[in-house]
């Protein structure tokens, strides 16, 4: 069955939020919704890779950004595609004040709790956009 949704994290390397978003997308794509959701490299959109552009054009796009620069959303939009839903990692963190990642790439247990929470949030958004797309 063809996957309907592509989710793109910013994968920012300067802050833990980038890694949290990236890991949440992997959890979504590999564990929670392997039949419905895929991802691709943001860099491929930056170089106008035809395959990556076609993937994004054909599918419903959700982006997950680590900070207010909104790199994932802006990169998708610069490729000519409107993002159906643009989330920020900080939304998950704001509601879970006691959890803080231990490092920028080595998130530790509390960081991975945030990853799970964010993955569930993304899962809900996938349901919503797929229902809307029907």
């Amino acid at each position: 069955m063809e996957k309907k949704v592509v989710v793109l994290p910013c994968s920012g390397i300067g802050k833990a939020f980038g890694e949290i978003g990236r890991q949440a997308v992997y959890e979504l794509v590999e564990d929670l919704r392997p039949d419905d959701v895929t991802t691709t490299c943001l860099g491929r959109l930056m170089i106008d890779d035809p395959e990556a552009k076609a993937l994004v054009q054909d599918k419903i796009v959700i982006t997950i950004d680590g900070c207010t620069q909104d790199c994932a959303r802006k990169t998708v939009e610069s490729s000519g595609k409107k993002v159906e839903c643009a989330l920020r990692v900080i939304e998950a963190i704001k509601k879970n004040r006691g959890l803080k990642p231990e490092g920028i790439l080595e998130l530790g247990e509390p960081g991975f709790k945030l990853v799970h929470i964010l993955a569930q949030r993304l899962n809900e958004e996938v349901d919503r956009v797929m229902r809307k797309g029907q």
Partner: protein
Amino acid sequence: MSEEITLEEIKYDKVGIIPCNGEEICEGTLTRHASRKVLDKLRPQDTVTICLPLFIAGDEGERNFAKIFPTITVDGCNKRCSQLSTERLSGKPSYSIIVSELLKAHGIEVPQSRRTLTEKDQIAVDVVAEEIANKVDEILEENS
């Protein structure tokens, strides 16, 4: 209108490391870990990292930095997203690494997971990080 004051004449005492962070393949994850190792442990005084998509999404800070300062791009595969984007949107990098080719040259297996790196995968991280660090030294030596 703003008055611009730069600290002093620009000295090439920093190298920008620009990993591709490719999400699709394990080598993309390697570019992240290797770049952070250089930034945090191997050459903390000599390097900064730049999030690649900030060339599109950010203000002029990142683009200007990569135009003025030397950069090293670290790509996971031969699509060379970091190298090509840096060339197109900012300035030609001083050096470009392709992780898949580097690992092949060293006879090192590519990690199996893009989510987590095993202890064995750390060897791959170390090899890439050393390559970046050595190139940082060369670049700063040339520019001093």
